[in-house]
């Protein structure tokens, strides 16, 4: 190894053994038990530079002289190592789970919904216990139900579909194909014989309707600033007889034509 200047990058690429060898060659004293980052910091200092003397004022005569030594040593160490913060560091990755029950439903479009969930192991164990089955004999499922215009009691949905989910923390896109309906989801355990025990219930969402409404607006208002007044619909309301391009597509494939550009470049 030559005496060419070292860079942090090259040092980081070396093993601990190589770093110690380099330190011996350059006569850089390394204490036992130093971590790699600390070794690198020492190696990057210009050779044979003394640690700057601690900026302590001369100790007053009455102070015991041994107080100076630990101060100077600490200052020297501080020069060599980054000062460890007394506070816990910020994590570098988002957590896999947040440790609480969650089941949230979002609308993606008139035909698809999206759900994400988290359920602690404990709740699952309870669920299996209540059903009287073991984990192997039961499935974790997401039940999506059409609850338009009803008070859902667990049994009276207009329609429902069960989606098996295999992880207690997850997310999934759910095909419902019922534009205009109100939905909720339940996460629960289902025994092989069909018995279902819901453990979590989601928020309700409204999937958008598609196509022109069969009803023509009957309520009209006039708004001036913050003042809103209801008015009678004008006697002779006339709209464009046939609205150009106002027969919008109602299928998912055709709707691929709707909407602005996905992004620049638009071409």
């Amino acid at each position, binding site marked *: 190894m030559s005496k060419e200047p070292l860079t942090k990058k090259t040092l980081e690429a070396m093993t601990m053994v190589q770093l110690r060898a380099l330190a011996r060659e350059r006569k850089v004293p390394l204490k036992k038990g130093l971590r790699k980052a600390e070794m690198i910091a020492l190696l990057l200092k210009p050779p044979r530079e003394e640690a700057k003397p601690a900026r302590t004022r001369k100790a007053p005569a009455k102070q015991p002289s041994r107080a100076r030594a630990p101060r100077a040593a600490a200052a020297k160490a501080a020069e060599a190592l980054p000062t460890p913060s007394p506070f816990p560091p910020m994590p570098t990755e988002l957590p896999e789970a947040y440790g609480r029950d969650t089941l949230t439903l979002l609308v993606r479009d008139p035909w698809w919904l999206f759900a994400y969930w988290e359920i602690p192991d404990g709740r699952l164990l309870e669920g299996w216990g209540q059903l009287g089955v073991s984990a192997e004999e039961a499935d974790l499922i997401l039940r999506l139900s059409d609850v338009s215009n009803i008070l859902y009691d667990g049994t009276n949905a207009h329609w429902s579909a069960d989606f098996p989910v295999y992880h207690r923390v997850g997310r999934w896109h759910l095909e419902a194909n019922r534009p205009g309906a109100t939905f909720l989801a339940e996460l629960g355990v289902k025994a092989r014989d069909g018995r279902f025990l819901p453990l979590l219930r989601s928020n309700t969402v409204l999937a958008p309707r598609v196509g022109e409404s069969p009803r023509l607006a009957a309520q009209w208002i006039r708004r001036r600033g913050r003042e809103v007044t209801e008015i009678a619909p*004008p006697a002779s309301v006339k709209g464009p007889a046939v609205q150009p391009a106002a027969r919008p597509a109602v299928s998912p494939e055709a709707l691929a034509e709707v909407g602005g550009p996905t*992004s620049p470049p638009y071409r």
Partner: protein
Amino acid sequence: MALGYLALVLHAHLPFVRHPEHEEFLEEDWYYEALTETYLPLLGMMERLARDGVEFRLTLSLTPTLLEMFADPLLQDRYLQHLDRLIDLAEKETRRTRGDAAFEPLAWMYLDRFRACREQYIDRYGRDLAAAFRRFWEEGKIDLLTSAATHAFLPLLSVQPDAVRAQIRLGIETHRRHLGEAPRGIWLPECGYYPGLDRILREEGLEYFVLDMHGITHADPRSPYGVYAPIYTPGGVAAFGRDQESSKQVWSAEEGYPGDLDYREFYRDIGFDLPFDYIQPYIHRDGIRIHTGIKYYRITGKSDWKEPYVRAWALNKAAFHAGNFLFNREKQVEWLAGGMDRPPLIVAPYDAELFGHWWYEGPEWLEFLFRKLHFDQETVKPITLGEYLDAYPEAPVCQPPLCSWGHKGYCEVWLEASNDWLYRHLHEAGDRMIRLAREHPEAHGTTRRLLNQAAREILLAQASDWAFIMKTGTAVEYAVKRTKDHLLRFFHLERQVREGWVDEAWLKEVEHYDTCFPHVDYRIYR
């Protein structure tokens, strides 16, 4: 008296990108390019029209993050550095292309334009673009809309009304701070609407917004006017619908004007074409080739073969296309007016950055359009959204469905394989922010700083730009990094408030990095 009206709406938006920790940062270029190629040229166009007595009307949304960037001193300095480097490069180019009949005029064109930008920015506007736009608003020529604070896609935050409300409140507050008055209308990010949002908009004092066509035509019950007049939602807010025909002529990749063969080709930039040694000082300092903005070729055809750009031909085309657009609008209005008991309104919204940046001749097209509207006919008049509503304040009450102007018309762009992992975290952060705001009605000192910074972080994480970039795959690493950084900072701040300690040094660092909305008050979450 005009037979009908045309409301051109330009949505000017950029996510907040400011990296004081680096001397140069690639993604800051988005802002400098937009200033040079879109915002300054649009202002220049408005000056010329006003000077020539051309009556014009434009509805313009300036999003809160864009307003914050306009006002930021560091970004102002960096823009001037960027501009000076461009001027330097253009000067070199005039020397390098000397004698070349095809390229030398273009090099001079760029040099003149960059010098004009500099003069505009420093001398005419004193670096204060908000004030420049405001002057036109005061003169009644433009209507200024706000948007959600960090352009969050609201339908996917609908599970947390308080988080939606905070985005709206801070948007209005930022608009008022930079432009002097509260806005009347709002540009919903991506025209993203859901039933119930209208009530929040009404409570915050907003009067109107824009939806994609199917937001109006699929509303229940339906309006007799289709998209050619606004409706009121049950919440009492007016909604305007985008006209498909005028959109297609400009947006469409195949049929739209911007694809014309005489227009400038975006992808042949000297940043990629010229030898490395020559161009190196003007591209990214790590040697990554980037767009400089100096491009010498026209679209020519569908293949890779490109001919030199001829400015006169392109301007001719722009004038021709403006005439064509106007002709179509006249025919459209004549046809519609025959069947309506009030003058029809054609709403034509576009991203502002289309004009000048993606479509180089866009601002010239727009200027030709306004001149032709004013001098060449009487059928169609330009109008702002607010003006039309004031003139015709009566409308039917209809509830639009959840919708957006994104690809396929709903939420899929922001909720698909590349980005659906975001929402678990965004909602968790939202819940915690709301809880913090409730638990601290009157925070002071360091706690207040922690809470305000937490608000900044969650707002920045909620920007719909990140999910959009993840889907389109253009700068995914950066978008993921921004999301994670803001969420992680948020959770660390929230933890400190909850556990009652503060890492002063770390807080100072984070406050230094994320400076958007310096005046934010965390109580927007109450």
